[in-house]
């Protein structure tokens, strides 16, 4: 019996698990790092235990601290969520040894599947189709090259313990191989403490299809059908759905059979996912088994009507899978998108900051890590929420989701929302023609460009200006009842200038005895202010009327209208003479840690030469010399933590 569950995780999955616990009357314990002290998942838990500082190794990955937290709170079970320790056999074993219930598969299953090579061997034996692959030692260059030759280019270099795109490299030709292997090994060692690598056959245009399986202690293993997760950026899934548009009844049966066979081969208990690569000809290859609840589990829940966390908790308590989990059938279609704090127009650079506003329509399910006011820090994954739609058909599910994202209020930082909205409405996507190279065919910078452009941007700016005037008049302490902006001799319009993604916009307006005059960048437009209320305005442009929600924090104005949301920065009426930056300064592209400094004061450098490398959010960013010249200053050293736009070094341009 589980009466109190400790969730050894954070963010949206911790909240998701707690939701089911509340429904089942199970108490909840959150564990958290110093960086998450005010996070919603901590606030929502019945009890919460501080593990330690922000770095995961000192908090979410510290097994002893987590077990101590369980003891301190009297939790009798631990759910690991996904990521962190979810597939760590040592942790599962420690949980069992502490006399606690482990909500996950048996230690043996984790161990068996934890090594990708080992897993493949088991699957081959169980007659599950697999891709050829060879384990390599990255320090043995000849062996690495030989293995790649044997499999045939293109190949994939993968960390055995990897996941989520970490420690993974595609290699097209022999010249790139050694560097890729070393890089993957480094990442794997840093992320998983295990640098075992292997080389695998690389399919050029595969789909990523996975099957949700569930097993119980009686030895039953069921398939809860497939999920398609082909749309990925840098091997990270961003859109997932169930069922897959590429899978028909026959293929579904074959996939399910293979997945169940895979589960049975390792005596699987609990929730697991068998990942396959699906080739264009319908053949599929076993990729790996994820011995945990997947990020994208909600789409399965939506089409099967099951609560997978509930099933996990039931099975973990030794109960058999309930009747409804046996071939529940697929009802309709569900799509999930992962909303990330990242900039698709700038190489998916992660973005940090405060989510000042966060609201989505109730037409969709939102499993979010954040609320208005939450901070997205540099320490963890920048996913802020999963947004999930369900509809009778795939097209409708895509439309509902796109509409909800368009209407969403996501303020304070850049996200991939625009990219997601555009993919959901894109022809190839709607035709179901998705594969893992989708975002190579469709430029993310183009898909991610702002939803609100041109005249729509002007309308949003007008909405911000008129809303702000209404709010100022409501807050006025002097002459508040006199008509807004009253002039007995009007000489000019009230002008508000905004900096936008498309440059500066000047909105001018005046209420002439109730008649509104509006100009955008000096050009008059026909505007009627229909309604003003504390959260926004209703405005008619010409004949077309629509509500605009407007929020602000300091000079940032967030306007959510019919075309989408946009953030505008209000420019000061009294611009000051600003201090100019030092010419030739190299700025940190984002907050992170300096991992490499290849510049010495006085050194001659060439344009484009990498001088400093900053690591942030799993990625290394090279800071290059802006021109040929001499290094005049180096302000950082390896190991320094730097803020975005911090000056790292200064290069004097050569004459």
């Amino acid at each position, binding site marked *: 019996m589980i009466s109190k569950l400790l969730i050894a995780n954070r963010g949206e999955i911790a909240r998701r698990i707690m939701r089911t616990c509340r429904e089942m009357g199970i108490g909840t314990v959150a564990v958290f790092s110093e960086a998450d002290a005010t996070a919603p998942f901590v606030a929502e838990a019945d009890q919460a235990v501080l593990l330690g500082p922000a770095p995961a190794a000192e908090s979410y990955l510290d097994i002893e601290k987590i077990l101590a937290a369980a003891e301190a709170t009297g939790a009798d079970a631990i759910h690991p969520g996904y990521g962190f320790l979810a597939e760590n056999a040592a942790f599962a074993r420690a949980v069992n040894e502490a006399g606690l219930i482990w909500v996950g598969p048996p230690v043996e299953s984790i161990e068996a599947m934890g090594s990708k090579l080992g897993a493949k061997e088991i699957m081959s034996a169980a007659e599950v189709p697999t891709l050829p692959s060879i384990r390599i030692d990255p320090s043995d260059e000849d062996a690495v090259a030989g293995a790649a030759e044997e499999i045939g280019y293109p190949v994939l270099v993968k960390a055995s313990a990897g996941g989520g795109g970490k420690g993974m490299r595609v290699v097209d030709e022999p010249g790139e191989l050694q560097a890729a292997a070393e890089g993957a090994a480094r990442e794997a060692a840093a992320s998983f403490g295990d640098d075992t690598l292997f080389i695998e056959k690389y399919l050029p245009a595969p789909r990523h299809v996975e099957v949700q399986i569930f097993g119980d202690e009686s030895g039953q293993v069921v398939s809860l059908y497939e999920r398609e997760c082909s749309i990925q950026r840098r091997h990270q899934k961003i859109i997932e759905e169930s069922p897959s548009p590429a899978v028909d009844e026959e293929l579904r049966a074959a996939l399910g059979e293979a997945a169940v066979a895979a589960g049975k081969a390792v005596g699987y208990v609990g929730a697991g996912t068998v990942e396959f690569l699906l080739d264009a000809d319908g053949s599929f290859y076993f990729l790996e088994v994820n011995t945990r609840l997947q990020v994208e589990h909600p789409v399965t829940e939506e089409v099967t009507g099951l609560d997978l966390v509930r099933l996990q908790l039931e099975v973990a308590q030794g109960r058999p899978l309930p009747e409804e989990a046996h071939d529940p059938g697929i009802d309709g279609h569900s799509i999930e998108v992962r909303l990330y704090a990242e900039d698709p127009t700038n190489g998916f650079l992660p973005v940090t900051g405060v989510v000042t506003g966060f609201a989505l329509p109730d037409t969709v399910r939102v499993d979010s890590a954040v609320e208005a006011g939450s901070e997205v820090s540099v320490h963890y994954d920048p996913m802020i929420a999963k947004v999930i739609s369900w509809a009778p058909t795939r097209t409708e599910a895509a439309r509902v989701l796109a509409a909800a994202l368009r209407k969403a209020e996501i303020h304070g930082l850049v996200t991939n929302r625009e990219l997601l909205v555009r993919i959901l409405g894109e022809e190839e996507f709607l035709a179901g023609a998705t594969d893992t190279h989708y975002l190579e065919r469709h430029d993310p910078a183009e898909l991610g460009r702002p939803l609100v452009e041109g005249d729509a941007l002007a309308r949003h700016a007008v909405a911000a200006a008129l809303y702000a005037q209404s709010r*100022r008049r409501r807050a006025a302490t*002097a002459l508040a*009842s*006199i008509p*807004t902006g*009253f002039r*007995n001799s009007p000489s000019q319009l009230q002008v508000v200038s905004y900096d936008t993604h498309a440059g500066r916009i000047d909105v001018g307006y005046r209420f002439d005895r109730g008649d509104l005059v509006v100009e955008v960048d000096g050009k008059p437009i026909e505007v009627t202010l229909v309604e003003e209320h504390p959260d926004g305005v209703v405005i008619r442009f010409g004949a077309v009327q629509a509500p605009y929600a407007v929020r602000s924090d300091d000079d940032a104005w967030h306007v959510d209208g019919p075309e989408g949301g946009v953030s505008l920065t209000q420019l000061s009426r009294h611009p*000051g003479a600003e201090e100019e930056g030092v010419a030739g300064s190299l700025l940190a592209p984002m907050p992170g840690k300096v991992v490499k400094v290849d510049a010495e004061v006085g050194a001659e450098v060439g344009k484009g030469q990498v001088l400093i490398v900053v690591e942030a959010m799993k990625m290394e960013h090279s800071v290059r010399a802006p021109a040929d010249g001499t290094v005049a200053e180096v302000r950082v050293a390896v190991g320094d933590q730097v803020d975005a736009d911090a000056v790292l070094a200064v290069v004097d341009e050569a004459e």
Partner: protein
Amino acid sequence: MPVIPTRIDPSAADFAETRAANLELLSRFEELMAQSRAGGGDKYVTRHHDRGKLMIRERIELLLDRDSPFFELSPLAAQGTQFPLSGSAVTGIGVVNGVEVAISGHDPTIRGGASNPISLAKTLRLQDIATQNRLPLVNFVESGGADLPSQADVWLPGGKWFRNLTEMSKAGIPTVALVFGNSTAGGAYVPGMCDYAVLVKDRAKVFLGGRPLVKMATGEEADEEELGGADMHTRVSGVGDYFALDEYDAIRIGREIVGHLNWRKAGYGPTRHAVDPLYDTEELLGIVQVDPKKPYDMREVLARVVDGSEIDEYKARYGTSLLTGWAHIHGYPVGIIANQQGVLFSEESQKATEFIQLCNQYDQPIVFLHNVTGYMVGTEYEQRGIIKDGAKMINAVANSTVPHISVMAGSSYGAGNYGMGGFGYRPRFIIGWPNYRGAVMGAEQLSGVLSIVARENAESLGREFDEEADAQRKALIHAQITHEETALFNTGRVRDDGLIDPRDTRSALGMLLSAVHSAPVEGTNAWGVFRM
């Protein structure tokens, strides 16, 4: 309070005619207003902008809180005079950092912002308004000083300008000078006498004598920046308190100064929430008569000005040529005194006297709506003591200490103007509609009276009366008075605080009532001897 019923019919022909006549008058008014805003004309405005300078109205707009109202005073000053329209200056009342302030600024695009006698009258009136109503004063300074051709009329009265500044300071009314350019010779005393002086880098020039004068006087080869630049004055002389990097910075600093004044108004403020009138203010144009011979119902006007169209009439059945009553405008309680049929009889005079006393008992500001041709003349009225009754009313108006605001809404002739708190009776504000007329008496009456006097004079001397010459003289005088009694003539000479579109009356009164509440609003029990 009782709601005023309306009896107008906007579909009637006479309503449409009246409206058309008002619109015609207003289009001429608007034309002049546009001209007053145009500064020194395209050439000088362009040159000013090209120097990276802002126009005076742009400066003022940047000082004001966004979306807050601004009431410009005497915009048509100098209309019909030899001096440039607007008097080379802009004055008004606006809100800066939540504080209602008086604002005065030269327009440097008009003859370098030099002060002529009208500029002086206008800016002195603004100081007077700031002092009486206890409004902090912000001066935008960029002026070449006295307009030299009219120096004889500017020099001596100009001294009052500086005296006023120090008297305001003594009274605890803050004064701020934002110096954007020339502020030399006498003008140097503006930053010199203000509590706060903000000087714009490389632009402000504050010195008693410029380079030529210094060379003349002492032979010194001086440098302008060293003589009176912002940098020097804020580092060396201490004449400047704040160093502004540019015009925007100066205005920003000005806003901060006002924000730090910890300013609190001394009046008791509005006593209710403002409620809009029940009727459309647009209809005023079909009600207010342009032809001074046609009377109109002030109740219909008030129904479109006061809160909720509600007025509690005092002595509604007595002295009915004058309406008195209590109402609210933008939440401020007011006493209303309005002429209904032009003439003031003994009853009206006594009623007004009582009402003014009552308003003083309850500390209520009084709004006068002028449409008065004068006190009744004739044997019967003289014998009944119209002089004593008129004297009572003038006594009451003169000694009343609650703020008075006059609205010139039609005629305002002779002593009737005095009894209604006209220009000479120090109302806190006088605003007028473009249709108003005011003089000792109407053109018709004045030319007729002169003709009769001349005829009697000729008769008594036994001379033959030259009918033709009389007709000519009469026509001349009629024309002169017709010109001099107009709203434009009076406003051009700063004998009011500006003309407004009648449709703006409610907003204007709301602002002015709020302004008078910056000072204590207190009535009196001290009066001159009432002749009973």
